[in-house]
C-alpha cells in the first residue's frame, strides 16, 4: 500500500492508502474524497479528475503521460497549471509513497 494525501481547495487534507498499481483518481473516488469526481472512470473522456501535483513531487510524477491526456486536460474546468494532471493517469507505485496532490476548486 502507498499513502497519498489529497488537499482540497479549502485546505482540508485526507490521507488514503492505495494499493500499489492503482491510480490516484480511484484512490479518491473509492474512499469518499470529494474533490475528484472521475465520472468516466478513467477513460480519458471527461477531465473531472483534474489535480495539481504538489511541487515537491512534480518531477517524480512528471507531466501528462500521453497526447490524449494533454488534450483532455484542456477540457478541465479548473485553472490549468504546469503541475496539472488527470489523476486517473497517475499510477501509484512504491516510489510515490507519500505523494501529495491538490484538487481544484471545481471539476465542472
Amino acid at each position: 500500500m502507498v499513502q497519498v494525501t489529497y488537499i482540497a481547495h479549502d485546505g482540508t487534507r485526507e490521507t488514503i492508502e492505495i494499493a500499489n498499481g492503482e491510480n490516484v483518481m480511484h484512490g479518491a473516488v473509492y474512499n469518499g474524497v470529494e474533490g475528484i469526481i472521475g465520472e468516466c472512470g478513467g477513460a480519458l473522456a471527461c477531465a473531472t479528475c483534474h489535480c495539481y501535483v504538489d511541487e515537491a513531487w512534480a518531477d517524480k510524477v512528471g507531466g501528462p503521460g500521453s497526447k490524449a491526456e494533454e488534450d483532455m486536460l484542456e477540457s478541465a474546468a479548473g485553472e490549468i497549471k504546469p503541475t496539472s494532471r488527470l489523476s486517473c493517469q497517475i499510477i501509484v507505485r512504491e516510489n510515490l509513497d507519500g505523494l501529495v496532490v491538490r484538487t481544484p476548486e471545481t471539476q465542472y
Partner: protein
Amino acid sequence: MATPEGTTDSVPDHVPAHLVRSIGMLVSPEFLADPYEFFPRLHEDDNPPLFYDVNPVMGNTWMTIKHDIAFKALRDAEHMTTQTAGIFPRDPDHYFRLIPQELNPPIHRKFRNVLDPFLSPKAVMELERDIRALANQLIDGVIDRGACEFTEEFARPLPVTVFLRFMGLPLDMTETFVRWVVSLISFAERDKAIEIMSEIEEYLLSVIEEKRTNPDGAAISHIVHGRIDGEPLAERDIYGFVFFLFIAGIDTVYAALNNTWVWLARNPDRRAEMRADPDNIDAQAEELLRVFGVTFSGRVVTQDFEMNGVLLKAGDRFQSLLPSCNYDPAVWDNPREVRFDRPRKPILTFTGGIHACMGGHLARLEYKIALKEWLRRIPEFSLQPGCEITYRPSGVIGPDAVPLVW
C-alpha cells in the same frame, strides 16, 4: 407505460411557442432512413440549442443537441433527476429502483463502488485475451464463407458472450436474453413490456437465489454478496441493480458495432487507412464512437429553474440527444468528417456526469478488439448488393441487420 404520447395539445403553458419543435426522433422517415444522417443534420437545420420536442413515441420533452447544455444537464443533480425518467413499467406495490441509474448522490457512489472495481480499465484488461480469442473464433466461423449476417454472427455474440460471462449468466440462454431486452427497449413493442418485465424478473430472481448459495466471483454474485457501509444490500436493490445491468449490457455494444460496420463496408479507403495505422486504434475507436453514439439520456426536472435563458419547470422531462451532441460544431470542426487525428474531447456516447456508463471501459475494449481483428482478417468487405439497411424506433439505435459479403 411511463411515457405519455406527445401531442401539440399537451405542450404546457410555460413553453414559449417559438421553442416547440417536432424533430421526428425515432419516427420520421428521415430518421428511419439513416439516423447518422439525421443526427448531424439537426445542427445544420438551425434548431435552437434547447427546444421543446413533441414526439408520438418519446412523449413531449425538453431536448438539447448541444454538447455544453447536455453536459450541464447530465451533471446537474440539483435540478435534474434520473428518478422516474426511465421507460420500464414497474409494479408500485413491489417497486424497485434502477441501480445505480436512478440513485442520487451520495448513496449513488456507494452502490457504484460495489461493481466499479470490476469494470475499471485495469480490471477489464484481464479480459482482453479472452475477448480477442472469442473475436477470432467468431471470424473463423464465417471467413471462408465469404458472407455473413454481421449482427447474428459477430456483432451480437461477441459482446453478449463477454457480458454474460461477466455477469455469471448461462450462454445457452443468449437468444432469450436478447429477445427480452430488444423487445423491452423497442418503442414498437411497448404493449408487451409488462409481460416481459415479469418474465425477466422471475428468471433473474431465481439466478439471484442461486448465487446466494453458490457465489461464483462474477458480477451478480458480487452484488448479492456486496456490502455498503458494512450492510448487505436490500432485496429490491439487489434486483434493481441486476436488472439494470442486464438491460444495459446486452444490446448497446452490438448496436455500435453494427453502425460502424455499415460505415466501414461503404468506405474502403477509410478501412485501408485504419489498417495502415493499427497503433492508432485508440483514436480511431474514440472517433468512431463519437459519430456512432447509440443512445440518449433522459432526466426529470426537480425544481423550476432557468437554463440557457429558458424556464424549465418541476416535472418537465428533459432529453439530451447524445448522438447529436457528438456532432456539435462548437466542439468538433466539420463534425460529420471522421478524422483519426482529432484532439481528444469528451464524447457523450457513454453519457456524462456521475451516471456515466459503468461498462464504458469494457465496451471500448470490445469495440477496439472487434475493429482490429476484423480488419486484420477480413480487410475487404461490402454490404450485400441490393440489401436495405433498416432501423426501427428503439432506445438503442442501430440497424436491424447488416448482411456482408467479401
